[in-house]
């Protein structure tokens, strides 16, 4: 049972970092970013590479992962999404992000092949070694402590950046009304680029912790993607704090429902159904997510 609780918390921590980043991109550029899961894998492979070369614990590779994920994400924005910002429709942007998903995923596959020969370690279906941390006699898995700390620190810093700095003000202003912000001299392009950097960095940070709990391969990013979408949709698109609530709802629900069903003899392989059906149910019943539902606005059609 304790194992289940730990699993649920770690998983929710990762979903929190992922869904806030995904939502940030939805808010700024209106992109349903299907390449988001691949930034997780960028984090995984950065951590694997750096920790193997330096011989340190993967936890110490967090800064490298942050930078790698952020830089790649920012570069993709500058090269692909910025030219399309004002002229592509929503579905086109989605198709573009799917193309990027394919490019990134198979680049990672190639990297995994090359790294296996170069680093002489398993680059597919591997696990990171964890250790236990003792708090007044209670032994806690390191990944729970570190992933919780990281997600709290990163999300609090994101909050401070958005709400306590002038740059954050400019960012929120650009989200609400890019034309007016531009007329007031805000460099909207750079502000949106920053949001891509942050989103990629958050996802890569989540990636550092993933292999402590689950065996990964370059395709694993996809399996993290739909639960992330579920978290964003449950929390309500457009509300960053909602995504946080959504992440813990989906994370805990997925782990516990699977646990309950497994004890009833149902295969645990049905686990993804929890978040998939959450996406469909929430979008059809209350398109603005839980917050919209609580405000009594959820029943109106989303479409204008």
């Amino acid at each position, binding site marked *: 049972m304790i194992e289940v609780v730990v699993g649920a918390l770690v998983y929710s921590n990762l979903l929190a970092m992922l869904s806030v980043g995904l939502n940030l991109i939805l808010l700024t550029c209106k992109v349903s970013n299907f390449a988001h899961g691949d930034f997780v894998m960028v984090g995984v492979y950065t951590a694997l590479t750096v920790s193997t070369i330096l011989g340190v614990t993967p936890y110490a590779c967090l800064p490298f992962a942050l930078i790698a994920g952020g830089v790649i994400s920012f570069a993709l924005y500058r090269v692909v999404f910025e030219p399309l910002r004002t002229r592509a429709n929503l579905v086109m942007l989605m198709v573009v992000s799917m193309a990027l998903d394919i*490019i990134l995923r198979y680049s990672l596959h190639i990297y995994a092949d090359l790294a296996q020969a170069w680093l002489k370690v398993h680059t597919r279906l591997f696990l990171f070694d964890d250790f236990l941390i003792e708090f007044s006699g209670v032994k806690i898995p390191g990944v729970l402590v570190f992933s919780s700390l990281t997600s709290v620190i990163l999300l609090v810093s994101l909050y401070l950046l958005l709400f306590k700095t002038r740059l954050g003000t400019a960012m929120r202003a650009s989200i609400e009304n890019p034309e007016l912000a531009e007329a007031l001299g805000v460099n909207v392009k750079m502000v949106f680029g920053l949001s891509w950097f942050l989103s990629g960095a958050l996802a890569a940070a989540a990636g550092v912790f993933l292999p402590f709990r689950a065996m990964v391969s370059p395709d694993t990013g996809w399996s993290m993607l739909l639960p992330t979408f579920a978290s964003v949709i449950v929390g309500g698109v457009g509300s960053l704090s909602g995504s946080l609530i959504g992440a813990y709802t989906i994370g805990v629900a997925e782990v516990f429902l699977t646990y309950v069903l497994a004890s009833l003899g149902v295969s645990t392989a049905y686990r993804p*159904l929890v978040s*998939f059906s959450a996406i469909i149910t929430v979008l059809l019943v209350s398109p603005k997510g839980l917050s919209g539902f609580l405000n009594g606005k959820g029943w109106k059609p989303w*479409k204008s």
Partner: protein
Amino acid sequence: MEVLTFVLSLGTLYSIYVILAASMELEYGELGLPNFAKVAFFAVGAFTVGALSVRLCATLTGVALEGEFKLRSYYYATLLSARISSNPLLGLTVFLVTLIVAVPLSMLLGILASYPALRLREDYLATTLIAFSEILRVITRNYEPLLGGTFGAGVVDFLAWLRSPWRELTMLVLCSSLAAGIWFIQYKLSTSPFGRALRAIRDDELASVAYGKDVAKIRAWTMAIGSGMASVAGVLYAFYIGSVNPDDFTVARTFLVVLMVTVGGRGNPYGSLVGAATYLLLDRVMLFIKHNIPLPFDVNYFSYIILGILILVIIVRKPEGLIPERPPLTVKLNKISESNIIQHNTEK
């Protein structure tokens, strides 16, 4: 001989992709409904074959199926194919019955899937449909009695009464004539008043309603037709491959079809032909490289990357695709100039 089988299988695959692209063209290219659950309707066809062909054939020949389906389906598929080799009628019955079951089933699901479009913005609609197709995949890969789960299911060879290469040739003729028929249906639909209504809804849903069109009904029709088409492709695919594995039906396959339509040119009935050809050409070139040029990694990965870059370049540089849409599509030019309407006008 090897060249012949290569060409025959290439033609068969092309036909299957043309059917998929034509159905996507109708739904996404003409109507603007991003049916990103395409693979689910494709899978309905294939799964029907996977679940039915062995069982149906066994019932018809009086063979009792013993043991777990997931472990024994391939064995029985081989056994029953041997029966078919001496009984062509049995093979054709299996083919027709699976087709007759799959198409209406898929059409029904299609109508169901057209309803979220009433209330969702396009990108959320696409996400919903993706989730829907993944649900179907997760259930079938884990519910073993139906399709053998991750083991997959064996499929009888309904053309076992023919010898190679006549078997492959017949398959090609069958697939290509079905593809031609389906493409022609798509062509006729998109150049008729129906196609006009589809493009009008895509351009401006509110204005279409204001000018009297029943948008919900038209969308349901289109999804039904498109899904029926996709399930035909699924049936053919299952018989062509000779087995059905749920993990073969991932979102990536939907994406390939979207790619074909985008590359070919959305809103142009010929786009699906060009798009499917472009994809297959690229795929085969990569296969050739894989067999002839040594690389330190699996070249399949590389072919996917090229595909991804290709679609990026097309969307950024030439968003309208290789053959852009050109009005008027639904009014025949020669008919107009025949009537005196134009002559009268040019005299002025």
